[in-house]
Each structure stands twice: as structure tokens, then as C-alpha cells.
């Protein structure tokens, strides 16, 4: 048995002894390696992070405490503190039970030995490839910030109904920011590659793209106020879907009346061509896991199917409130690069891999079809949009004019706005066949018509 599972079982045993009616322990071991670089390597980092949380219930009162130590004294403290908190908490009349049975789905390609066993030299070689590729495009381009990271995350969960499970997953990521031009006229660009697998890192591709775009952005300008048809690159579109949907399609948001989707199941909320599904077991998916943070199997959950709102994402608690099955969307971390280890939070529903169904054109064909408009590559501040009113607003930090179906001048600094509910209802019908991710969302390159530009 692994150390984290044994720690989780010890915690459950102690919690029952303490007097809890039900108890659960969730334990984590995260090992991570990072290389931080610019034009040269600046630092390397390796870390081991362990921890465990205890969630205990007594008389429908819930207590929760987490601690980074897996030693007996740390576990005892977590049990004592969670008991103290539970006694002070008010009764939750909606509390039913922790899961009485855990379950596992089959997932593929979420664990890669090549990530786990990558040596310091392997990481250094990959970073050198990134740096050399950028400078092969143009020696005048500077890498202003970059990192390469590999992580191995192990989790164990156990509860007082005799359930226990373990899982292990890997992740590799490469990030690169580059600049070209002079102090007075700069072009910058950012690229990112994330994969479960070592060979999924698109190092060369990413490095070439970032350098080429930085050079083009040197000449970026504003465009005038008005309306424009836009094409969003796949990961930029995934970014706006992340900002506008991921926090409102959860059962939690709906049950608490902070979702615009309350009471709209079965209604048409998007045009017929739009299908958005949470694919909990997507092969190689960044959010794919055999079981969620409640210990329940991850599944496939249609959210919008052919324009009709079909369902929401549930964890054990929100599902038991409605006497239905969980969709396996319990998350303790919200976001892959969440700044806190995942054992520190109680579960809440959140997408696993929210996938916007792609179309069948190539991205080039979508741009060509658009004729005249704006190609959006990078935005900032899209996360500041209002997912409840649907008011979407994003500031363009890197994009290009589309003229007669071709990408021409570089553009930046304008604000693009639209109502996201209107976009769903008929402004995003043309989608490409490519998919990339931002946060938990996978989306294709997508045409979004008729956006407002605030510029000159």
C-alpha cells in the first residue's frame, strides 16, 4: 500500500474513533520539476508536496481541516480540528451521505512513465530545443520568460463506508514568451503547450510560432470603433468558453441561483449546430481521471446538445440533493495550475474536459470564408467578463486583420465585446476541425460574427 493511502485510512480510522458519524480522508503527493529560462536557463526547481484533509460529519454538521504533514501527529491534529469545526458548524439539512460505493472509469494516456522518469538532462535538452528554435527563426528575438515543468500527482481517498481508491497522473507543460523589435516599438507573443505525455509537448512548433508572431507584432496597430466579424484561434476561443461557462453550468451554481441557466433545461439556448459535452474520460485529456475527487467514476455529460440545454455537472453532494447520480465532476482544485494543492479544499463540481464540438473545415478555410474581419490569437482580461449577464469583453493583445480571406496587418489593444448568449445562439456556427485547450475547455478555431470593437 502506498504511504498516502495508508495515511488516508489511518485518518478515517481515527475520525470514526473520535466520534464522527461519517468521515473521509483525501491525501496527495505531488512531485514537480521546473526549469525557468529566458535566452538561457535561470533556475531549476524540484519539489515534493504532501498533505491530507479530513472531512467529517457529525449530526449533519461538517468539519474540514487539512495539513501538510502525513505523520501520525499531523493526522491526529487534522482529525481533532475538523471535529472542533464540525461541532461549531450549523447543521446542513441537505446533507445525505458520503459515497457508499466508489468506482473507476477506464481512462487512457493520463500517466506517462517518460514524464515520471525524465532526467534533469532530458529537461535541459528540451529547454535548449525551445531556445535554439526561437533563435533559428531570428537571432534578434528574445525569450523574455519561459518554463518547462513536469509533475506527477498521486491521490488517495478513503471513507468510513469502507471505500478506498488511488490514482496517479502526469503532466508536462512548456510556456514561452518572446519579444522582438526595439524599446520604442515592441512585438510580443506567448505560447503554451500542455500534455499528459512527454511526447505531447509541441516544443519546436510552439517555439517557432512564438518567434514568428513576435516579429509580426512589432508593427501592430489599433483599428477603429465599430462592428467586426472575428475568427478566434482554438485556444483563445477555449479561453472565452472557460470564462463564460465553466462556473455557471455546475449544479452548485444552479442550485444556488447564481447561474443564468436556472430553469432552462430542455430549452433551446444555442443554434442547432452547437454541442458542448463534458468528456470526463477523454483520451489524454488534461482533466481525465478514472475517478473524481469524491471517489466516483468520471463520465460523459452532455451540457448543450444540438442547441438544447441538456444538463449540469454534479458532484456527490449536489447530486444527492436532487436524488440523482453524480456526473463525476467533483474537483478539489479548480484549474490545473491552481496555486493550492488539491487536498486543501472540499469538493465542488467543475468541468473535467468541457469540449466544444469541432466542425469539419480547416482553420485556414474558416479564415478564408470570413473574407474581411479580425483573427484573434491572444487576449487578456477575458476572465473579467460577466458569466452571469453574458457580457463578454476581452482585450486583444495579439491578432491580425483578415482581408479578402488572408491574414494581413497585426492588431492589438482594442476591446472586443459581445453577449456570449447571443454568440451561442447563432454567431459561432462556423467552426474548424482543430481542438486545443485553455483551462478545462477544449475548443476549435471558431468564427464569431458581429463583435463590437472599442478602438480608436
Amino acid at each position, binding site marked *: 500500500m502506498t504511504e498516502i493511502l495508508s495515511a488516508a485510512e489511518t485518518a478515517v480510522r481515527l475520525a470514526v474513533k473520535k466520534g464522527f458519524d461519517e468521515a473521509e480522508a483525501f491525501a496527495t503527493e505531488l512531485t514537480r520539476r521546473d*526549469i525557468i529560462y*529566458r535566452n*538561457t*536557463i535561470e*533556475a531549476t*526547481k*524540484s*519539489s*515534493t*508536496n504532501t*498533505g491530507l*484533509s479530513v472531512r467529517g460529519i457529525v449530526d449533519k454538521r*461538517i468539519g*474540514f*481541516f*487539512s*495539513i501538510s*504533514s502525513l505523520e501520525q501527529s499531523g493526522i491526529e*491534529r487534522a482529525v481533532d480540528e475538523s471535529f472542533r*469545526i464540525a461541532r*461549531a*458548524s*450549523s447543521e*446542513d439539512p441537505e446533507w445525505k451521505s458520503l459515497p457508499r460505493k466508489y468506482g473507476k472509469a477506464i481512462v487512457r494516456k493520463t500517466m506517462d512513465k517518460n514524464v515520471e522518469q525524465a532526467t*534533469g*538532462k532530458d529537461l*535541459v535538452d528540451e529547454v535548449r530545443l525551445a531556445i535554439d528554435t526561437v533563435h533559428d527563426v531570428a537571432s534578434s528575438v*528574445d525569450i523574455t*520568460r519561459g*518554463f518547462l515543468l513536469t509533475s506527477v500527482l498521486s491521490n488517495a481517498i478513503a471513507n468510513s463506508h469502507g471505500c478506498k481508491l488511488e490514482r496517479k497522473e502526469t503532466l508536462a507543460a512548456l510556456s514561452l*514568451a518572446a*519579444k522582438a523589435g526595439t*524599446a520604442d516599438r515592441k512585438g*510580443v507573443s506567448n505560447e503554451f503547450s500542455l500534455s499528459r505525455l512527454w511526447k505531447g509537448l509541441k516544443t519546436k512548433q510552439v517555439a517557432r510560432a512564438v518567434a514568428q508572431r513576435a516579429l509580426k507584432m512589432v508593427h501592430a496597430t489599433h483599428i477603429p470603433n465599430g462592428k467586426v466579424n472575428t475568427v478566434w484561434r482554438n485556444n483563445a476561443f477555449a479561453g472565452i468558453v472557460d470564462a463564460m461557462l465553466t462556473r455557471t453550468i455546475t449544479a452548485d451554481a444552479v442550485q*444556488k*441561483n*447564481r447561474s443564468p441557466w436556472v430553469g432552462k433545461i430542455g430549452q433551446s439556448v444555442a443554434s442547432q449546430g452547437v454541442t458542448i459535452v463534458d468528456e470526463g474520460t477523454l483520451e489524454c485529456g488534461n482533466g481525465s481521471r478514472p475517478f473524481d475527487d469524491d471517489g466516483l467514476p468520471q463520465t460523459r455529460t452532455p451540457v448543450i446538445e444540438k442547441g438544447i440545454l441538456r444538463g449540469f455537472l454534479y458532484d456527490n453532494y449536489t447530486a444527492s440533493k436532487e436524488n440523482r447520480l453524480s456526473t463525476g465532476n467533483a474537483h478539489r482544485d479548480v484549474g490545473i495550475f491552481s*496555486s493550492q494543492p488539491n487536498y*486543501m479544499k*472540499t469538493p465542488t463540481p467543475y468541468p473535467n474536459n468541457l469540449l466544444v464540438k469541432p466542425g469539419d473545415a480547416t482553420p485556414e478555410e474558416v479564415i478564408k470564408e470570413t473574407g474581411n474581419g479580425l483573427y484573434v490569437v491572444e487576449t*487578456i*482580461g477575458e*476572465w*473579467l*467578463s*460577466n458569466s*452571469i*449577464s453574458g457580457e463578454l*469583453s476581452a*482585450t486583444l*493583445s495579439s491578432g491580425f486583420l483578415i482581408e479578402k480571406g488572408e491574414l494581413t496587418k497585426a492588431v*492589438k*489593444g*482594442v*476591446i*472586443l*465585446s459581445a453577449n456570449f448568449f447571443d454568440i451561442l445562439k447563432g454567431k459561432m456556427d462556423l467552426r474548424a476541425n482543430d481542438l486545443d485547450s485553455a483551462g478545462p475547455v477544449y475548443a476549435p478555431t471558431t468564427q464569431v460574427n458581429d463583435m*463590437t*470593437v*472599442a478602438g480608436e
Partner: protein
Amino acid sequence: MDHLLKFTVDRARDLGAQYADARFQDLRQTLIVAENGSLRSYESDRSTGIGVRVLAGGSWGLASSTILEKGHLRKMASEAVRMAKVTKKFSTTIQLAQVKPLEATVEIPVRTNPDDVPPDVKVKRLLEANKAALTGANVKNSSSRLGFLHDVRVFVSSEGAEVRTDVTTSGFSQLSVAAANGSMERVPEQRSLCAGYEFIEGSDWNTFAAEVSQLASKVVVAPMPPPGTYPAIVDPELIGLFLHEALGHASEGDLVATKESVLEGRLGSSIASEIVTVYDDGGITGGYMVPFDDEGVPKSKTTVVEKGTLQGFLLSRDTATELGLEPTGNARAQNFENKPIVRMTNVYMQPGDLSFEELVKGIDYGFYLRGRGSLGGQVDVGGGTFTFRAGPSYLIEKGELKHMVRAVNFAGNVLETLKTIDAVGKDFAVSTSVFGGCGKDGQLAKVGDGGPHVRLGKVIIGGRAD
């Protein structure tokens, strides 16, 4: 704890590190959430760990762990040195600016340690405020939070520095959602202070929470502003956010050294209108207290802009060497695990002498942008483009405040906008948040910001043309 840190530093030196430091952290956090009149969650945690940082072969090697025993710490020290040496051939030589190694202990005074307050007392207080915000027919959701952070850090270096800091922060936040005429709006707002539970006891959170709900009810029926470029007045909360995002990040020495920042090469030149003076200060009242940074360097008041001229950058020891300047105590790490990087502490603008009315009078058609209910902002440091989400705001017409407008994004170019500041108010406020923080390179840091009311000659307002 100090002996474990010294042990780790000594091991790293034995293995050939030119320099080594070790940081211990004991972090206690509590977050209590109430929603629609009932307790939603009560989460509390304690994490401890040690991180070691070594300079070997001219490059940084870092290792960290939550396992605090000697055998493990020895392995960490050797891993850090080994990795630093692996990269030797491909790294630039990092050099640390000289500082005097200090021995100090600073504890931000607290009257009531939040950990000593029984959980039921906190829950009761929170539930009361949460219910007080369920006011008015339009309000659909009320979420309230109490947050406490107790951050103890110990720093030991091979040069002989030994610094211990102890900072407690407490705060309350309210998020209200209102719906009317088929439309919904959310308004978030919070107040925090580096203080103990006395800060929670001494304030009227019921009224605070109810006011956020009233604002949400009002803004949900307000019109959108027309998109375009306008003059605007920003309040202390928003000027703080603006300076943080637009100027503060660009003044971070690492971004200047890599030439990514728009302020690169502009030291001593005019970058803002003459009425603009901006500081970064680790000890300003209302802000987040940073007496020392995570390199054991004291953080005092750094002048970034004086009367429109760029006077200084925010620096760590290595970026100070790179730029040929003195360290300013701005090397900060989210926790023991992370590499200290250049971060702001509390960035603010010095007040001027105009009243709010005088600021409004100078605008023929524009907006009064409010920070209350703002969601924050972001900047593209290299390109100089910034963007913010203001809270519910107001139209200004012919020198008078008019009706409320919906929360809007506004944007501009850092250097252009700083030059258009044409009036500075005489009021002043700086604030921080126990709930959020500033993200950079995957690390979150607690910061504060503020200033007076300020008039911007020209910003892009992203409303919607219908």
C-alpha cells in the same frame, strides 16, 4: 526550526554552492463561506515546509519539501546543487548584489489571534451578515466569506542573515447576484486588513453586505455605456488597480532586465504627467505588510515615479546586479516552495489637492469608474496594453454626475494613459485582500494598492453598440 535551516544551508555549501539560503514557512489559512443564509463550507489548513535555494555554477537550483527531517533535507540540498550544475553550460552567470546580512524578527501586532476565536463565533458573525444581504426582490444569491491568513516565515542564508516575519490578515467578502428584466449581474466586494480578529469584530458587516446587494439590484437595470474613447475619473480602489497592473508590473526589475517591460531604458525620463508620483511601500497603512522580502532584504518605500519621471525599479538581489542598481526588497515567493521573484508590495499614488467635485467639473462627457464591484485587471507588460473591469460606474455630463452604467471593461496603453492624467484628488486610501492576490509566473502574492481619485484624459471603454 533555525537549526534545520542552517543544516540545509551548510549541506548545500559543503556540496559546492557559492551561496545558499533556506526558507521555512508555517501557513495557517481559514476560509468560511456562507451562501443564501446557510453555512456552505468551513475550510481550515496548516502547511509547513522548507525550500532551499542555491547558487552553483552561476545558476539557481531550488528544492523544497513538506517533509521536515534531516535525511530528506540533505537530499534536497544535494538535488538543488546537482541541478544547478547540470544547467551550468547553458546558463548566464547570476550575481547577487551585496546586502548587509541582517538578523531580525518582525511580528505585525495582533490583538486577537483569529485561531483563538471559537469556530462557532465566526460562523454566527458570518451568517448574520450573509442574511442581511438577502434584501430586495432582485437579489437572487448572497455569498459571504470570512478569511484569515497567518503567515510565519523564517529566512536563513549562508551569508549569516536570519530573518523571521509573522503577518496575520483578516477579511470579509460579499458577492451578491441580482436579476431583473431577464438579465443578471454580480457584484463582488471585500475589505481586509493586516490585523487579527479585532478587525472583524470592529466593523459592521451586515450593513456592508446589504449595500453590496443594493448595488447589485440597482446595476442590473442600468444601461450599458456606448463604446469608445472618453475621459474618466477613477476612484482610489481603481487607481490602485491601474497602477498595480499598468505601472507596477512594468517596473518589476526582472521584466526590465529581459527588456520585456515598456519601461526598459526609460529610467530618468518622463513617463507620466508631472502631477504623478508613485511609490511601492511595504509598510503603508491599509496595505499588505512586507517588512522583509524572501531574500532577507528590508522592504521600505521605493519611489517609482516622481513628478512624472521614472525614478526606480523594483528589484531583487540578482536583478539589481543585472541593472546596476541597489536591491529594493521586492524578491517575494508565494510560499517556501517557490523561487522568490520580483513582486510589488503596495503600489500607490501620492494625493494632490483637488476635491472630487473639482475633478468632475472638468469633464464634459465621460465616466466615473468605480472600483467597488470590480473584478480586477490584467496587463500585457511587453505590449503595454492594460485592461480592467470596473464595478458599477456613472456617466458624467457637463461637469455633473449622472446615472449609473453597467460594469464595463476599460483599456489603454500604459505610457499613453499615464501621460493623460490631468488632475489628482486630495483624498487617499490603500487596501489589500486576504482572499485574492496578484498572479505572476504561476505564483500568487498578497499585495495592496491605492491612491486618491484621479482623472484620466483618455481611456477606451468597452461597452456595446446595439
